[in-house]
């Protein structure tokens, strides 16, 4: 039984759309308030004033600001993301290739983080005050206060240089013919394994921090939930401790964790962007840095836009998940 009505979903979609419009406006303002003009990178000292004017004309920079804004809004909504001056290809071609890679890394981190965090939090909250609780809790807090790129360097040093177990960069084996011999061809299976193998370290670095947030919430809420009357009753009913903990206590404690996840997921995406650069993982995060450093405004703008859209989509999914977690929440259903 779903408690989400079509009406609510429609409302939710409209709000998301408006959110994206606001984000686009902010993006436009931010990029236009950056010092200098992005065509400066395309200029060379021997260019004549006329040539520079031509460049400006080409990139539409001579248009009045409002015209630029309207063009930007219209173009983006019709799927026209422009041309990248640095890579000299349509921006969409870049996004198209990079976005799925980031979604893989970000998705995998979200899944592992939100599996490990609540699970550990459940046990710690249930066995609160024990030695194990205190040591894992402290360990989690320490991990939580470390920057992800630093943990990533540590892992590279340990797993890559010292133990030589996992690759420290890229998303796939480069030049496989040199590694596996000439005439080597990728099969689907092998390609997948190769990607997972390369994913291991970035994923590990992100998860090492990503699990803590949901663990902290879960642990605290579990402590409260174990004092609830329904947990007492579940025990009085003769259920095993395990069942009381998982079915009655943890199930209720998950609701605030889902609330926390709405904020948490933005941080995970944040972390993914940074980590991609540490591992030279060719995703959106990597692209952001490259395009910013090269003053490639059209690409920068599009990458930020796509990440924002990704987050807005996550929010909608979370809202739906929320209604399944807590039957008391009704979205738009008429009270009978």
């Amino acid at each position: 039984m779903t408690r989400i009505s079509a009406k609510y979903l429609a409302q939710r979609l409209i709000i998301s759309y408006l959110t994206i419009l606001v984000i686009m406006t902010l993006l436009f303002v931010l990029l236009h308030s950056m010092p200098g003009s992005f065509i400066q990178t395309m200029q060379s000292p021997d260019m004549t004033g006329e040539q520079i004017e031509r460049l400006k004309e080409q990139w539409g920079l001579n248009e009045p600001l409002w015209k630029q804004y309207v063009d930007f809004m219209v173009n983006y909504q019709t799927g026209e993301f422009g041309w990248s001056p640095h890579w000299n290809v349509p921006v969409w071609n870049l996004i198209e290739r990079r976005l799925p890679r980031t979604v893989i890394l970000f998705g995998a981190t979200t899944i592992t983080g939100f599996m490990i965090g609540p699970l550990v939090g459940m046990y710690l909250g249930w066995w609160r005050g024990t030695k194990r609780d205190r040591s894992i809790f402290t360990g989690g807090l320490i991990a939580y206060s470390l920057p992800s790129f630093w943990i990533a360097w540590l892992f590279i040093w340990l797993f890559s240089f010292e133990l030589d177990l996992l690759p420290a960069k890229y998303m796939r084996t480069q030049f496989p013919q040199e590694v596996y011999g000439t005439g080597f061809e990728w099969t689907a299976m092998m390609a997948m394994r190769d990607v997972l193998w390369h994913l291991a370290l970035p994923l590990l670095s992100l998860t090492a921090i990503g699990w803590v947030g949901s663990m902290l919430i879960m642990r605290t809420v579990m402590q409260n939930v174990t004092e609830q009357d329904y947990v007492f009753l579940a025990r009085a009913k003769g259920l095993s401790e395990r069942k009381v903990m998982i079915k009655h206590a943890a199930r209720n404690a998950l609701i605030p964790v889902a609330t926390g996840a709405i904020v948490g997921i933005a941080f995970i995406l944040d972390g993914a962007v940074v980590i991609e650069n540490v591992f030279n993982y060719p995703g959106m995060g990597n692209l952001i840095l490259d395009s910013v450093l090269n003053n490639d405004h059209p690409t920068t703008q599009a990458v930020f836009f796509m990440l924002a859209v990704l987050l807005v989509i996550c929010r909608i999914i979370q809202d739906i998940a929320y209604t399944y977690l807590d039957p008391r929440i009704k979205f738009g259903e008429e009270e009978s």
Partner: protein
Amino acid sequence: MPLLEFEDLSIRYRTDGPDVKASEDVNFEVDYGKTFGLVGESGCGKTTLGKSILQLLDDNGYVESGHIWYDDVLPEWKTDTGKVRPEVVEDDRYPVRDDGMMDLTALDSDDIRRVRWNNISLIPQSSMNALNPVYRVGDQIVEAIRVHEPETPEDEAHERARDLLEQVGIERERADDYAHQFSGGMKQRAIIAMAMACNPDMVIADEPTTALDVIIQDRVLDAIREMQDQFDVSMLIISHDISVMAETCDRLGVMYGGRLMESGTTKEVIENPANPYTMGLQNSFPTVEESQERLLAIPGTPPTLTEPADECRFAERCPFATNVCMNDHPPMYDAEAASDGRSRVQQEADVGHRSACYRLDVLEEMRERAKEEETWQQTETPSSS
């Protein structure tokens, strides 16, 4: 015939300081098919006693000494004809007494789990919040059935859950609702229905009506009585509300500061109280006949239960206390004998009308003076100085 027998039960709570003596040498019995009521102010140890029956004390609570005897044993300790196997009675490793009663405090966690709800179920304090908000009410009843009778098919358990709800006056379809769709009284009745799910011998009801308004209270009490008639269960009702108790209980036990002060039939305890504390408690509740009279409160507050003094627990607030009360907490005396003029006859077994008070020799005088307002005001001066 007792179904449940408390024998010298003492319960402690561990704290950072000395242990809290939540109950001390409590003796009483709940007979088959009868309702026993435990009354007393908050913090006197009533709820602790109720929880201890099913080993549901908080983590820091433990039974220091005494037993809770229950007149049944685990199924594997019985013969095919349902009698207790002789070797179980004789072997000291089993917590079973000669008369075939089993000590609930001595069962391990797996065994007590099988007694919970199956033999003895419990309507918890504030059962308003006792339904899990994320599961359907019907499913929670089914869960109780299926834990103890795993062989019951799912749909049959669901039918039974709906039958039970119907019996407490909740429509069958409402089994598919969640707790937040129920009113307060409905939640309470749903818990009562749930308590009957496994056909228990006994139900413990901890403050079953406290959070409800008077009209709903009445309906809930009706539901309890109806279930009691139909399932023939014994009940232990825990409440501070003497008027509720007067309506529902066969016998009453009055608790104060972790001690049982008085016990007897409801009529005896309410009409002819034999303990100063019961008299004071009674003054503080309105009765129909004396509705216009001012209600009298017992001055002072209940004692803290960490390191209580040796004296009678009530001595500090008691208008009748004398030197004899200051040495020791009194044992249980036969109150009827005291009424007849034979002042103090010790009576440890829970029969007839008992009271723990040294002043039973002046019982009639106490009964007279307890009705007067100034009797209770007098005590305020010495205790507060």
